[in-house]
C-alpha cells in the first residue's frame, strides 16, 4: 500500500478509532486487495510505511464484495461500478479479502 495512504489511514485511526472505521479498497487484483487489507489490519508486510509492525485490525472490504454492494444504491452502483464488476475477477478478490479477515479474526 502506498506510503502516503498508510499515513492517512493511521491518522483516521487515531482520530476516529477502530470501531468507527471501515477501509474500502478498489484494487484491480485479488493479490493487491489482499495486500491492502493485510496492511491496514495486520501491518505493512513490506515494512516500508508507517504501518510496518502496527496491527490496526481495521475491517477492510473491496468495493465489489457483496457486503458492500448491498449497502450502495443500485443505480449509483450501476453507473459507477458495474463496468469494473464485469472486468474484475470478483471471486478471486472475495477469496483474498476473506482470507485476510479470517486471519485477523484468529489473531
Amino acid at each position, binding site marked *: 500500500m502506498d506510503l502516503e495512504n498508510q499515513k492517512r489511514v493511521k491518522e483516521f485511526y487515531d482520530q476516529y478509532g477502530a470501531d468507527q472505521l471501515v477501509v474500502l479498497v478498489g484494487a484491480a*487484483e485479488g493479490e*493487491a486487495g489482499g495486500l491492502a487489507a493485510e496492511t491496514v489490519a495486520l501491518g505493512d508486510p513490506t515494512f516500508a510505511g508507517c504501518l510496518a509492525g502496527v496491527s490496526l485490525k481495521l475491517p477492510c472490504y473491496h468495493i465489489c464484495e457483496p457486503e458492500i454492494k448491498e449497502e450502495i444504491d443500485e443505480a449509483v452502483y450501476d453507473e459507477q461500478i*458495474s463496468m469494473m464488476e464485469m*472486468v474484475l475477477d470478483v471471486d478471486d478478490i472475495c477469496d483474498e479479502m476473506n482470507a485476510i479477515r479470517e486471519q485477523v479474526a484468529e489473531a
Partner: protein
Amino acid sequence: MSNYAVLRGASYTLAHTPDMVIHDGATQVTERVVNPDGDYLKELPKHLRSYEDAVKYAPNQAYIGNIDNEELKAVAFPWYENPTEITDRTGKYGEIMPEDEYYGLMQICDTFDLVELEAGFAADVKAKLAANGMFTDAQVAVLDKNANFTEESLAAVVADGGCGLYFNDKLVGVIKKAHDVDVNLSAHVMLENIASKATSVLSLLHLVRVTGIDPADIDYVIDCAEEACGDMNQRGGGNFAKAAAEIAGFSNATGSDTRGFCAGPAHALLNAASLVKAGTFKNVVVTAGGCTAKLGMNGKSHVEKGLPILEDCLAGFSVLISEDNGTDPVIRTDIVGRHTVGTGSSPQAVISSLVTDPLDAAGLKITDVDKYAPEMQNPDITKPAGAGDVPEANFKMIAALGVKKGAIEKKDLGNFIVEHGMKGWAPTQGHIPSGVPFMGPCRDMMLDGSIKRAMVIGKGSLFLGRMTNLFDGVSFVIEANNGQSEGGSGVSEEEVKCLIANALKDFAAGLLAQ
C-alpha cells in the same frame, strides 16, 4: 472541415542503464536511506541484465520496431525467459544505446560543463559514438574536453556533492552540482534533467532519420516528459523542448513544455495537431526523454521473485505532426475525449469520458475503432509486481463498456480484446507507455491498410503532485488518410454518415419535444 494534421512518423529509443538503476532509481535511492544494509540492495546487482540480454528482449525489440505486435504475441510469456534471436541494436524506429555511449551522449547534451568523464573512458566512448553515425563530428568532439579527468578527480567531485556515473560498477564520470545552495540545481536534479534531455535528443535524431525531414523545416517542439527544470525562483521554468531541439540541430524551431503526468504525451499531441490544423505551424514535433527515478521501480518484486531487473532502460520517443499531405494518417482533432473536472474518478466514469463519449458524439460505435492504444505497459514488468496486465485491463474495461452500451455481446468480450487490443511492450517510464508507443506502428498499419481507425488514450495521476485529488486523461482518434482532405474540400463517407446520423438525431429529438 478537413485539413487535419497528419502523423508523419515516430521514433522510439532506449538507453540501457543498469548502473543507473542502482545509483539513481528512486526505489533504490529510498532503500539506501531507510534500509541501507538490507538484503534487497545486496541482491539487486545479481539481477541486472547485460546489454546483450536487453537487446534480445522481445518488448525492447518491439519498442524500436524490429518486431510487430503479432510477433511479440507469438513469443512465449514470460518474455524475460524467452529472448529473441535478434542482436540488432537498431530498428526502424530507433535504437537501444548501451550505457557507456549514453554517458557520452549526456555530455554532448550538457551545455554547462556539468558532465565530466574519466579520460580513458571518454576516448573509448568517443570512438563508439563516432561509429554510431547519428552524431556530427562537432558533437563527438565534445568528448575531447575530458583529457584531465581521472578517477581521483571524479571521486573528489562526488565528495563535494556531485553524482557519480558508473559503468560496470566503476566510477567513470560525474554530474556536478550547478549551484552551491539551490536544490533545484543540485547534482541529482541536474542528472535527472540531463538524462531526460539526452534520451529526448536521441529520439529527435532518430525521428529525422526515420522521416527524412530536414531539421531546418521543424517549426515547433513540445516536450511532454515528467521532469521540471528551473531554479529556486522558478522551479518549473523549462524549457526541455528548446534545449533538446538545439542539440538536435532544429535551428528554426522554438518550443515549450507540456505536463500532465502520464497523460502529458496525449495532451502534447493534441496541442501539436491543433497548431498544425490551425495553420500556425507546418511541422511540430512532440518529444520526451526518459526518467532515471523510475529505473528499477518494481525492483523489489522482481528480485524477490527471482526475475531480472526489467526496468533497466531509459526510454524516449518523438513524433512528427505535419500539415496534410494526403497520405499519412490524420489526427481527428474533432473526435476528442476529455476527463473533465466534473467527470469523477471511478474507472467507469473515466473510460466513458475518454472512449464512449467522443465516439457517441461522432456517431461511432466502440467496434468502429480498429485498435485502442491506452497505457501500453509491458506486462512482463507489471504482472510480477502485482499490478496485473495494464493494457489488457484497459481493453477489458473498454469491452465491458461496449457490453453496457449494447455494442457487443458479453460472450464476445474476449474476442473484442484480441481484435481491438494489443500486447503491451512499453517500459514503465510513466509518460512513455501512455498511448504514444502505438503512434509509429499505427502509421505503418494505416499505410499498409491493415487498420483504418485507432484511438490513443492518455491517462494521468494528477493527485501524485498533491495539487488536486483529480485524475486526468485525454484521447483522440487517428484515421487512415482518404486522400481527399487536402485543400479542405473533401468530405469522407464516414463524415457524411455522421452528419446524416446527427441530423436524424436532432429531428427525432425535435419530434419528442413536440
